[in-house]
């Protein structure tokens, strides 16, 4: 089996000592948690960045263990140890501001990635617009059902920025189809098992009325699929969409069960790292391939405040290639 021990990276980085790498910039990445597949991909991409592989920069990843306080303390550690720059993926849009302020006061530039933080002190942010993905996924479902009938929305944890913004996008698309009724709308906390139970109960409460399922992430969309199967219904009779492009969802897309929109976590990670190195070494030119991959997101000498990694709808055409990348 693969064993990825990200904490080891931290230990080795510290053990190697500062003397030998004195002139190599040290960049810390504080991520909210490494238990889920999406952040695994994000972290793997960061370590796979050409600059890291060539030893031009030393990167340490801190697992925030889904706790804002842990992230805050990790910031304090990085400040004490004099990191040159910090890449930040906060657990919560509000909770990270104090940490950013502290780093800013210590003169350490902070770069946001994937999740926004409510602070104007970020040097730059690399992410994808959740409103846009919410709109895209809802639009897919609505197109499938012909802008008529009933849909359900399975939401992320209420109050999280992704939930708020994806819902905004969902509703924007739904407003374009006034004939579509939202039959039910509830959180399943990004969890496949919770979504499965929720969907089973909805299928009972609203027999024959649900035509579309908008799952704000792939896990929940996959849970809905299992519920439909368990109820003895055909998945083909439902239009289902998720967001993120996790491996199981790619398989489901390949099987024709659902639609997914790939959030390119790898690009978010590598883009943020390019920007961070640039901040430390003004003559640095970006080494990641993503700038060529996404012409819609120009480098602009690393000077923009915000970089928007485009969403990639997963289709029958590109799904095999995407699955190949996950091997």
């Amino acid at each position, binding site marked *: 089996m693969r064993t990825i021990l990200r904490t080891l990276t931290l230990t080795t980085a510290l053990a190697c000592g500062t003397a030998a790498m004195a002139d190599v910039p040290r960049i810390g990445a504080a991520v909210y948690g490494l238990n*889920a597949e999406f952040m695994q991909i994000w972290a793997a991409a960061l370590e796979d960045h050409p600059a890291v592989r060539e030893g031009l920069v030393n990167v340490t990843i801190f697992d925030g263990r889904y706790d804002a306080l842990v992230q805050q303390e990790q910031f304090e550690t990085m400040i004490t140890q004099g990191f040159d720059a910090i890449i930040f993926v906060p657990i919560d849009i509000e909770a990270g501001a104090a940490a950013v302020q502290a780093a800013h006061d210590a003169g350490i530039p902070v770069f946001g990635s994937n999740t926004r933080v409510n602070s104007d002190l970020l040097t730059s942010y690399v992410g994808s617009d959740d409103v846009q993905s919410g709109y895209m996924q809802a639009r897919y479902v609505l197109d499938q059902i012909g802008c008529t009938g009933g849909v359900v929305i399975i939401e992320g944890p209420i109050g999280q920025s992704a939930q708020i913004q994806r819902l905004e996008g969902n509703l924007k698309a739904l407003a374009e189809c006034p004939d579509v009724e939202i039959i039910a709308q509830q959180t399943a906390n990004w969890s*496949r098992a919770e979504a499965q139970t*929720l969907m089973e109960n909805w299928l*009972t409460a609203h027999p024959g009325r649900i035509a579309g399922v908008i799952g704000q992430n792939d896990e929940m969309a*996959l849970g809905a699929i*299992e519920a439909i199967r368990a*109820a003895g219904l055909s998945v083909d009779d439902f239009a289902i969409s998720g967001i993120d492009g*996790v*491996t199981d969802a790619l398989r489901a897309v390949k099987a024709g069960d659902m639609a997914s929109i790939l959030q390119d976590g790898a690009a978010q990670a590598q883009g943020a790292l390019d920007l961070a190195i640039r901040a430390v070494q003004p003559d640095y030119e970006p080494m990641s391939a993503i700038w060529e991959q996404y012409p819609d997101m120009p480098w602009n000498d690393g000077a923009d405040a915000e970089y928007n990694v485009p969403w990639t709808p997963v289709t029958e055409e590109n799904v095999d290639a995407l699955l190949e990348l996950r091997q």
Partner: protein
Amino acid sequence: MAGQQPTGTGTARNGRAMLAEFGQRYGILAALVLVCVGLALANEFFLTQRNMVNVLRQASINGILAIGMTFVILTRGIDLSVGSVVALAGVVSASFASTSATAAVSGAPHPTLLAIAVGLGTGILAGAVNGWLVARHKVPAFVVTLGMLSAARGLTLIYSGGRPVPGLSDGYRALGTADLFGIPMPVVLFAGVFLGAWFVLEATRFGRHVYAAGGNPHAARVSGIRVERVRMAVYVISGALAGLAGMILAARTGSALPQAGIAYELDAIAAVVIGGTSLAGGVGRVTGTLIGALLIAVVNNGLDLMGVESYYQQVIKGGLIVAAVMLDQARHRAA
């Protein structure tokens, strides 16, 4: 064993006294019936056959964990690690049943029976470590299983690399998705586990040992019962059932997720406590646990049907747990 038998001498009793006694003896069952009647009136779909099957299926995983937990709590113990063991057994067994080139162990998919044996074995191993530390080394169960809660989750993430184990074989998925004469497999397994546990606790020597070792370990020891072995055994049972629950969960959701089962121990403990089993040990029945697990599932299902937000559901569930324990204490005072 410690059931309250009627002690009336046959003298005339008024209806209220009989009602009170019924409430004392069948309080939890009455609560379940009452909630069901209420939900049936409030929602036309509640009593449909399909919804009843749903409720049973949704109660299965928690119910299986709660039955294992009943054994442990009867001996004055607690097993906080079941949620993590669910995930660990899920990913380990799934890696034997996976068709995925990356996530599976070499040669997979192996026969379903092997994968199931591996899953049960994983749970048994985790339970044996718990039991060994509790029984032999006298470390408090709360501490041991709190440690295992963390360690098993960590092992799950190491083993899986933090990624789901997908592509489970059809045979393996049958654990969660197949049905037997129209009854979903998780429900069949839940019923089997319940009947087995009921038989063990009510009718076997080991069952008597469990009640005695929990009711008064000193007296049990003096009476020739190997209390340490009993303690060891209950953690193994809890671990094995957590393993089974983990496989059912993986089979239901279609892949084994390393994040599965977080906080499942709380619902399992809640079902046991609602079912009237005393945390002080020695008192309780697995039928109570069954009703407790059903009550939790019915409440969740009913509130979903009526479109109540899950945040309110949590509040209602919390109130239910405390109310059940209060009812239970009132029953003991009255006895």
